[in-house]
């Protein structure tokens, strides 16, 4: 019994997000008289979660480096815009390639500037955010026609495809993150870059690889967003980075990075956030109250996961 209590105490922090998820689901099911457990409702949540999960799986790599990535809204906007623009020049199928390439380039720029110039990666990511939104917004604004997804892709926005992408991503990236050199070395760099270097880890190479992974997953996620939206405007992707950050932290991901990161934080965090929003909407809560609650939970989560030992090493 004592062993169990000791185990529970030590790992409470780790299991709290999952417990919170179960708690939220049960709570809203009760409060809404089962409305939230309606099959359609659950399907909606699952569908909405796919894009966030895919993006989060990539971002957890850069997050474990200790990088809070504030560029996501710019990346989504710019990649989506370039992708749809490419369909006009090169035909509809160019969209996929263009979006992924654009997303990868953006992330590598962040990584590259951080490595070459030593500028804090959070700041660089802000810069990319402004740049992405600015460029896309400017050109979109000067266009007379809107930018729509080519109709040949209309069939692609389907639940099955999105679920498939999400599930495959979860499996592949869990393995890469927890069981390969890439994941472990990224976490080591996040824990203590000096020690990592001293241990023979090629910090530059692995940082860039982490950003590459993030870029690929952001590209896939942007593609999913574009398919879901049917068209893009200057506001596409707005707030994505904040929502993403909120979700990952609520799921237990630590802002300081390091070896404590777990990939299930992404899935748990996304689901927790969406169930919370969904539940509160079904109950008819005032939108401002929803924001307030999300803020409180975010604050609590950051407090619990922030590792003082990891602080000096934030890149």
């Amino acid at each position, binding site marked *: 019994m004592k062993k169990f209590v000791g185990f529970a105490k030590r790992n409470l922090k780790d299991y709290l997000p999952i417990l919170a998820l179960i708690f939220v689901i049960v709570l809203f099911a009760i409060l809404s008289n089962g409305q939230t457990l309606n099959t359609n409702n659950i399907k909606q949540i699952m569908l909405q979660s796919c894009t966030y999960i895919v993006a989060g799986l990539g971002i957890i790599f850069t997050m474990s480096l200790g990088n809070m990535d504030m560029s996501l809204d710019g990346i989504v906007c710019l990649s989506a815009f370039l992708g749809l623009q490419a369909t006009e020049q090169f035909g509809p199928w160019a969209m996929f390639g263009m979006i992924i390439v654009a997303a990868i380039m953006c992330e590598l720029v962040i990584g590259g500037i951080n490595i070459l110039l030593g500028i804090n990666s959070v700041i660089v990511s802000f810069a990319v955010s402004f740049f992405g939104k600015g460029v896309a917004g400017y050109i979109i604004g000067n266009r007379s026609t809107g930018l729509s997804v080519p109709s040949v892709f209309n069939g692609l926005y389907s639940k099955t495809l999105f679920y498939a992408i999400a599930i495959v991503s979860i499996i592949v990236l869990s393995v890469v993150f927890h069981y390969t050199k890439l994941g472990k070395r990224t976490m080591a760099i996040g824990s203590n870059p000096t020690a990592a270097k001293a241990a023979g880890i090629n910090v530059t190479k692995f940082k860039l690889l982490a950003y590459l992974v993030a870029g690929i997953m952001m590209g896939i996620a942007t593609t999913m967003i574009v398919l879901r939206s049917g068209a893009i405007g200057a506001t596409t992707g707005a707030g994505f980075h904040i929502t993403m950050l909120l979700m990952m932290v609520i799921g237990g991901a630590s802002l300081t990075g390091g070896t404590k990161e777990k990939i299930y934080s992404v899935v748990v965090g996304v689901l927790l956030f969406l169930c919370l929003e969904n539940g509160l909407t079904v109950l008819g809560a*005032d939108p401002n109250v929803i924001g307030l609650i999300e803020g409180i939970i975010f604050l609590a989560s950051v407090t619990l996961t922030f590792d003082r030992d990891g602080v000096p090493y934030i890149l």
Partner: protein
Amino acid sequence: MKMKKIIRTILAVVMVMCMLAACGGNKASSSGSTASADGPTIGVIIWSTDDGLGADAKTALDTVAADLGVNLIYRTGSFDADSQTTDIENLISAGAEGILICPIVDASNDEYLKTCEDADIPMQLMFRNIVDQDAYDYCMASDQFAGYVSEDEQSAAVAMVDKLLEEGCTTFGLVDRESGNAVIDRRQTGYKEYLDEKNITYYETITTNTATATEMVDATDQLLAANPDIDGIILSSGSNGAIDAIITDLEGKDIKLTSFDTPADIKAGFEGGNLCMLTTGAQIDPVYAMINLYNKMNDAPKADTPTELDSNYIYMTSVEDAQNYEKCFSEFNTYTADEVKELVDMDLDAFKTEMKNYSLEMVSEKMK
């Protein structure tokens, strides 16, 4: 140390539980309650219910909804197509039987409609029409599209220019916003085209869509400094206190101002002497939109095909107008409960005529 952390956790969880319980308890008083579940539920998606137009729209909608026995659930704060689609999905889960939306991304209207079609419920647009050809074709051909209500931005723009010409202005200064907001874009295109047609000189400054009042005033000052012969200014969007600040800024100068939206103290604005025209009052738009949607939801649509309705702006050009406006519009008094029911029963032509009659005079007449 571990103990502290556990206490913190428990506190956080307890806090959250209380908030949720309180929130659940608020169901009855919040405007979006599902407690009185006898009437139909409409999901309303709007950019915000806190700013000038948003708050007025909410007041109007809440009053009319109460008259009709309709429950409203609001979703705000979404600024891209993906989030608005999520809003629609969440509202459907919450039991919405009709969606009233002010769409942010014009070309995604067909996507929004598809989400509604999947759930077999109708969708109605407010404050917007559909510009993108593909989206327009799709929506107009759909059984679940109730229609759209929008303002004639072009005519309003022309009226603003004419008013300034009336006041004797010869050189215009346009304080514009960057493109991205379809409504504001149409206003700006409207007066620029008209000014070009009439061969009138104008100078333009462009501010961001989120510019603060200070930034707007700075932009105006720079425009005036660069072109001192400007004697008439048009403001395409006066939100965030921009118009109040510019009115103060222009005091004492011999420059006339017309603007969209309203300052906090409208009467004082006109008394100052620079302001000569305000274009506002669009909060009637969602009311007409909701009535149109309500008809559709009750299988008594005003027309067999989606309706394309034009809503009027309210123009104010004098201190008396301002006084009238403040008297009539601090609460929503334009239509009584009985009149709302009449609007529901009207056929399409009568409804359109009624909408055409909407003006400051009409409302102040009613209130006498």
